[in-house]
């Protein structure tokens, strides 16, 4: 049972009537929903009609930290944003690392809800108890880094201020626009930047100076002191420290399921140039970390380019390298870094942007799009200059950029080639082609927010288990990992920190912070409830099995090359088994018995 008085503060800002209020998040809500993603779905379900227009007045942006936020518990930087997605028309959540989430906690808030819409461009300034809505008219149209800098200047130049903002893509309601904090940390997927743009909200700036109270600070510090040395001894943590997420390039490309040329292939010899050691040697100049993270997997990169001049950025991560890089046929760091930097500056999800560009490239190469359609851009795979120009056109909604700004499903439908858009529920797939690790087929198809890998990134487990081409039994693995990640995301910790920070220690830390008596069984129960609530939000909007899809490329076209050659996916049989494992009907809807078990029946 929950005990003690751990409770949180929720800051609510209404942009229509400019009202600012503070509410309590009660202790028992934390015990049932943990924090982060759990609180996100709880409040979204309560407050946002599943049938609302995602770019209308009724949608909200619901930011929630995890219970560890602002402490020294390792990896606790992640803040969750829940919203209805304009890209997929589903429930959506997006997580961001960095320092903005903890700064919200230092200002005294565990959550922030933005509702309504402003008549004119504004930004929100949260300075501990002082909360102001300020004009952003002079910042409208500015790119991400410029906005970050100008807002800090507007507030007196204090570099301790952390800013989350949208770029031109969000202002122009690009359906996969992101919200970016600290210049390079994105709430990437699902188009939250467009939701923020629809509210005429340019940025949220935060400065906090309050202490973070925990139930047992001595016990917590003793536990943390025991945990931190484990990261140095953990091989995976150290590999991530050296190469970041790009340590995955070698494993996934060699296994033949790395997205290549709009997922038409799974392997390229040229992709070897992007492997971790070459990445570190050729473009990384130092490491960066999120708040309270000892692994420091972020990489600051730079290149002096004869084509583009100096290019400098934090990143790119593995997904950006894949979707803007190999999936668009790019073969060198100069082009990948520049494309990543441009996408970041405009404020777009690099995965979805890459998926749109690779769609356009395949259409151009097949003669479906011509030079007349593309404003004379030679949109061939590997043409980085054309890719970079198209990124700009998407952000500004110019030419075919206007079609692509609506998402790959819309563009492909309009161009008469719906099967060439690589998406599920409108969201572009991540790097992992599921023909090479078939558990990912279920991860993508059953995700409540569309084809996002982080609901259950099982491919490495499938490679380790030696059964990646098997379909039978994958529902067990995917379900277990979906529930694990619901816990991770609700605790507000980075998944990489698990390499040293075990579940047992996570539970000890949780109880020392909150004073609760959480158990592993209760955490898993909460996770299952969270996941079913996410599903039910979509069910109430008419979603069912018919929406748990994969494109024909995955189900009917055998992988043509590499170590996954010949593979296709029998999704329907996998879905039958998955729904059984979840306690859902064969139409993909949680049964009354399952809802009652989870306390969700009304």
């Amino acid at each position: 049972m929950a005990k003690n008085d751990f409770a949180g503060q929720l800051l609510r800002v209404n942009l229509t009537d400019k009202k600012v209020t503070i509410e309590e998040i009660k202790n028992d809500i934390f015990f049932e929903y943990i924090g982060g993603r759990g609180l996100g779905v709880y409040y979204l379900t309560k407050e946002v009609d599943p049938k609302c227009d995602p770019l209308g007045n009724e949608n909200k942006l619901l930011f929630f930290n995890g219970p560890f936020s602002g402490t020294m518990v390792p990896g606790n930087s992640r803040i969750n944003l829940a919203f209805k997605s304009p890209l997929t028309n589903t429930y959506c959540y997006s997580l961001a690392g960095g320092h903005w989430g903890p700064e919200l906690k230092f200002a005294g808030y565990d959550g922030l809800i933005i509702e309504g819409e402003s008549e004119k461009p504004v930004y929100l300034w949260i300075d501990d108890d002082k909360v102001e809505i300020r004009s952003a008219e002079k910042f409208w149209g500015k790119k991400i880094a410029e906005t970050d800098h100008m807002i800090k200047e507007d507030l007196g130049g204090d570099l301790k201020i952390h800013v989350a903002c949208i770029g031109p893509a969000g202002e122009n309601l690009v359906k996969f626009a992101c919200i970016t904090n600290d210049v390079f940390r994105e709430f990437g997927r699902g188009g939250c930047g467009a939701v923020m743009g629809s509210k005429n909200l340019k940025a949220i700036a935060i400065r906090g100076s309050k202490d973070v109270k925990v139930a047992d600070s001595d016990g917590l510090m003793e536990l943390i002191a025991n945990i931190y040395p484990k990261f140095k001894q953990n091989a995976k943590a150290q590999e991530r420290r050296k190469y970041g997420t790009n340590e995955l390039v070698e494993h996934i490309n060699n296994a033949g399921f790395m997205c290549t040329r709009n997922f038409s292939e799974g392997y390229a010899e040229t992709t070897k140039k992007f492997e971790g050691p070459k990445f570190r040697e050729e473009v990384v100049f130092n490491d960066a970390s999120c708040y309270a993270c000892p692994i420091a997997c972020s990489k600051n990169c730079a290149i002096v380019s004869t084509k583009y001049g100096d290019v400098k950025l934090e990143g790119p991560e593995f997904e950006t390298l894949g979707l803007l890089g190999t999936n668009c046929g790019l073969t060198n760091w100069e082009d990948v870094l520049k494309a990543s930097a441009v996408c970041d500056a405009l404020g777009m999800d690099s995965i979805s942007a890459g998926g749109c560009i690779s769609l356009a490239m395949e259409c151009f190469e097949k003669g479906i799009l011509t030079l007349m359609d593309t404003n004379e851009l030679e949109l061939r795979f590997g043409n980085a200059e054309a890719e970079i120009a198209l990124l700009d056109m998407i952000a500004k909604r110019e030419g075919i950029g206007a079609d692509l700004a609506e998402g790959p499903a819309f563009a492909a439908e309009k161009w008469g080639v719906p099967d060439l858009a690589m998406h599920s529920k409108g969201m572009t797939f991540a790097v992992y082609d599921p023909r090479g690790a078939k558990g990912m087929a279920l991860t993508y198809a059953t995700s409540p927010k569309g084809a996002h890998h982080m609901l259950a990134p099982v491919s490495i487990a499938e490679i380790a288990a030696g059964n990646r081409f098997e379909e039978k039994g994958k529902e067990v693995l995917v379900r277990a990992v979906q529930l694990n990640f619901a816990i991770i995301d609700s605790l507000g910790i980075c998944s990489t920190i698990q390499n040293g920070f075990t579940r047992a220690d996570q539970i000890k830390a949780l109880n020392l912070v909150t004073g609760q008596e959480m158990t592993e069984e209760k955490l898993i129960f909460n996770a299952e409830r969270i996941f079913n609530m996410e599903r039910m939000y979509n069910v109430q909007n008419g979603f069912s099995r018919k929406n748990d899809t994969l494109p024909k490329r995955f189900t009917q076209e055998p992988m043509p090359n590499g170590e996954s050659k010949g593979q296709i996916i029998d999704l329907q049989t996998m879905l039958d088994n998955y729904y059984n494992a979840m306690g859902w009907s064969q139409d993909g809807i949680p049964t009354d018995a399952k809802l009652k078990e989870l306390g969700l029946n009304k």
Partner: protein
Amino acid sequence: MIIVELKGEVKAAKAQEKEILIEWEKNITVLDVFEKLEIEKSNVGLIIVNNLPVKYTDELDDNCKIIVLPILCGG
């Protein structure tokens, strides 16, 4: 007997092999097996027994197979 399969980065201090046989005992739990083999828990992501995920406190039947998978993280 219990078969223990260690996948990926998961290692046991008490055995070099990746597939290990140990004696079954009444009321033996997953945690007991891990302690016998000195499996480093910080590398462990998921534990599957007979196609179902299990916890450290779960008891094991004779002739079961434990598959220990590495940690899964983002990227």
